[in-house]
């Protein structure tokens, strides 16, 4: 059960991040954070096909995390998500066409290892 939940956290979480990035890139920059503007932003995002899949995928990932947190500690939940740093950096390069130099690769790897150590300790 625990590992099923881990899969339900990582796989939809990864898909959500990629789709949300695509959707937000199409939406254009968000620079106004007044309450009315945020409501307008939500209304505009509700029409985005990428976010229509991305946000529910994020919710699946979130509810799986909620369920996992109720039966296990955060220290069990986090290590699996640590590996997603490198995975998602690779997806960002090949799917989202981001330019990823050595700093980003090294940074993502270091952060992944660091997250693993922090949550084990």
């Amino acid at each position, binding site marked *: *059960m625990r590992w099923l*939940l881990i899969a339900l956290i990582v796989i939809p979480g990864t898909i959500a*991040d*990629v789709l*949300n*990035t695509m959707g*937000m*890139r*199409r*939406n*254009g*920059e*968000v*620079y106004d*954070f*007044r309450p009315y503007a*945020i409501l307008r*932003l*939500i209304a505009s*995002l509700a029409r985005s096909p990428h*976010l229509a899949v991305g*946000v529910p995928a*994020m919710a699946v990932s*979130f*509810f799986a995390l*909620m*369920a996992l*947190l*109720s*039966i296990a500690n*955060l220290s069990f939940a986090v290590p699996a998500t640590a590996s997603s*740093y490198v995975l*998602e*950096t690779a*997806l*960002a*390069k090949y799917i*989202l*066409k*981001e*330019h*990823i*130099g050595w*700093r*980003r690769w*090294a*940074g*993502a*790897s*270091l*952060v992944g*290892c*660091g*997250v*693993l*150590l*922090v*949550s*084990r*300790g």
Partner: protein
Amino acid sequence: MAHDQADSAELQLTHEVPAPILGAGPSTATLAAGVFEDRSQPFCLKTRTIILLLVVSNVLGNFTLSRGLHEVGRLVSFSPWPYIHAFLNPLVEVGVLLLIVWLISQLSLLSRVDLSYMLPVTSVSYVLTALMGEFLLHERVSTESWIGIGLIGLGVSLVARTVPRTAPVLHKFGDLPYEAAQ
């Protein structure tokens, strides 16, 4: 926005980031009008403010949610009722509210920076969680964790030195570059 005042006390994460993200750099047209110069400063600050908001709401959201769910008890079910029951716990409610703030700030940040920039930079939340455990909850942070915190810090400082956005920006009003579409 009130958060702008908090910028001086903000995490020093992105101070190495070059100010002109896409479209904010001076060109002959913008120098003449002087419009983008005025806009570029709060623009850059707001990106940092979003990062701060994202990290804080993530840490506090996970913390209150985790606390609340332990009060609620076991929650593995395919039926919606246990989840609805869990929402009646005030700690869970605060946690969910904070995670909504987290969602909106994450989407806003993704509209400005690369995914491969956001992910490592926002991992400071793990450092904050560990430090919160040490200083607020008096849990001992192990040597292993301190090494982890060091690695995350190093990773974040590397990524923060890259240009935040490298991918082409599309705009819903066509394929004009962002600054032209504005």
